[in-house]
């Protein structure tokens, strides 16, 4: 039994390490050259809203302050049947020449986006979730990437806005890690999510492959997968910053992540033909298989760690129960007792690479190397929380149940 657990651990660690090394190599060998000239065509930014009374004003204000010719930025706000004060807040923008406001019966984010796309008249269309804000130069930087005629979509860097508790600090590091990953995937031609906050598309994408779909409540992933399936290029502009409000409670975070992971698994099932298919390049051969296996590996490693931790706690508890509280003394340090098993060293290396990648992502997005404690929250707290939403997402897919938005 111990032997089997050990082999499973080694396989999981090998696969996880392989993928991290693969991303790092791709990231470090990046030889992308971009045209840095200004490119300011007309663009439409879609802002779907459902009960966003707390954040929609900030979202719109950040769009109005974009460093981009005003007459070339059309903002279409789609109020998707909000039941809170969102509509009242939007009233203040009714007379703004840059903003159009449309109300519709609640039908889900993808229906709001599709309505916006049908109303857009520009060649470039983007989306900004109404809980996110953009940097002034984000749009300008993104549009530069479209000077390559093959580029069909561009994704930004996402940063957690004002992380004011441990949970948000954890997400801050996670998003930096995401920025590193996204950049590496961009180099590999393997981006498979065009995030809701400020991803931009050529309008012809929707004309050629169709509008957004429900896609297990993860329409941003499905759209990227469909684009990849049709051989469309998706790029990343790490210096285009989008700030998003991360969930501030475990419950909200749990619901969000269950939706994301359920959607990922649902889309993987729908697009399973892309797995291990060399027709889809790095995405089909390495990225998607490892993304799926990564979930299995994460669950396995966490389960094994949890099991070992429980055994240790149980042993200490048994000792306490049998002999009671003894004298607590801290023994002298002896290197002899440091755990130097291969599995421990490899796990430590894996965690170190993850932390290193967080700093890479931070440097990529903010241009700064800044030490902070958030990567530790990410590595340790995330590992504790992850199994809960992974298991729920697996369960949802097993019983074919879509996760709700809120």
């Amino acid at each position: 039994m111990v032997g089997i657990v050990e082999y499973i651990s080694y396989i999981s660690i090998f696969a996880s390490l392989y993928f991290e090394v693969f991303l790092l190599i791709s990231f470090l060998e990046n030889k992308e050259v971009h045209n840095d000239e200004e490119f300011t065509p007309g663009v439409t930014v879609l802002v779907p809203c459902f009960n966003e009374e707390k954040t929609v004003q900030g979202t719109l204000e950040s769009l109005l302050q974009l460093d981009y010719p005003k007459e070339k930025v059309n903002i279409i706000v789609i109020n998707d049947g909000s039941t809170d004060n969102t509509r009242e807040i939007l009233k203040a923008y009714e007379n703004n020449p840059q903003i159009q406001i449309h109300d519709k019966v609640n039908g889900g984010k993808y229906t709001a986006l599709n309505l916006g796309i049908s109303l857009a008249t520009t060649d470039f269309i983007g989306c900004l979730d109404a809980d996110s804000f953009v940097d002034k130069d984000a749009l300008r930087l993104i549009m530069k990437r479209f000077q390559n005629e093959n580029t069909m979509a561009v994704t930004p860097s996402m940063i957690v806005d004002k992380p004011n508790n441990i949970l948000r600090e954890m997400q801050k590091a996670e998003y930096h890690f995401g920025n590193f990953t996204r950049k590496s995937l961009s180099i590999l031609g393997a981006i498979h999510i065009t995030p809701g906050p400020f991803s931009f598309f050529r309008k012809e994408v929707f004309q050629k492959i169709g509008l957004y779909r429900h896609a297990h409540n993860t329409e941003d992933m499905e759209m990227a997968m469909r684009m990849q399936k049709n051989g469309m290029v998706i790029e990343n502009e790490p210096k285009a910053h989008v700030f998003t409000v991360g969930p501030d409670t475990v419950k909200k975070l749990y619901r969000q992540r269950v939706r994301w992971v359920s959607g990922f698994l649902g889309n993987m099932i729908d697009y399973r033909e892309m797995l291990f298919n060399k027709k889809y390049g790095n995405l089909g051969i390495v990225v998607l298989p490892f993304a799926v296996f990564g979930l299995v590996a994460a669950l396995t490693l966490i389960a094994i760690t949890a099991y070992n931790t429980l055994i240790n706690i149980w042993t200490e508890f048994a000792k306490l129960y049998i002999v009671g509280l003894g004298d607590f003394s801290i023994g002298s340090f002896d290197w002899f007792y440091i755990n130097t098993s291969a599995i421990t060293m490899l796990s430590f290396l894996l965690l170190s690479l993850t932390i290193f990648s967080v700093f890479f992502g931070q440097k990529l997005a903010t241009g700064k190397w800044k030490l902070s404690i958030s990567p530790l929250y990410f590595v340790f707290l995330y590992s504790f929380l992850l199994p809960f939403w992974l298991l729920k997402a697996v369960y949802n897919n097993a019983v074919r149940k879509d996760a709700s938005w809120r």
Partner: protein
Amino acid sequence: MKTPDWKKYLFTFVITGIIFITAFYFNNYFNEKRLLEIKSIQDSISTDILSSETQFSLLSELSCKDLGSSILSQELNHLAEKIEYSEKNIGLDNREVMQLKKFYSLLEIKDYLLMKKVSERCGKKFVFVLYFYADAKSCPDCQKTAYVLTYLREKYPQLRVYSFDYNIDVSAVKTLINVLKVKNELPAIVLDDKVINGFQARDLMEAALKEVYPKETATSTESTTGTKK
């Protein structure tokens, strides 16, 4: 979309493989270092044995007050802990670990016999406990007994606990088992020449110990050897 880059996949595989091999290499390297350290302790203990035997031979010519309170090196305790750690982490299938464990058992018997003589001749009031254990699979209560004995030897400084693997292939241990008539019902404890089989709770053990424990108690904790599982 970029075409599959097989060379990069292979290169990544080689890098990951090298990392894995390096981790295993370092693991072996540190384990060898551990065994070297144990061997060094073994050498030190060999000297102690020789010293013990010499002292034992000279005992009749020495006054009891010249005899050290701890004849056996304190390092024996450390050795016990390190062998136990090595057993768990390197494995008993390692020949060197097994050899060290056998040697440790012999040393314990040696010390036990010597200390009994010292106790008789010099009137030193030691209490001897011989503890026979087996692996967790065949003796689920052995670990609990080890906790109790560790607790007791810390609390009662004149208690000397000698622990033996019941199944170890050392003829001297087998002889000891035969002489003391210890049945294969583990854990087994020999206290004051009486064999107690099965797990004894802390209170029961302590009560049994108090019956034979000398009234005047010392404060030193030096005169104990390590308690294995």
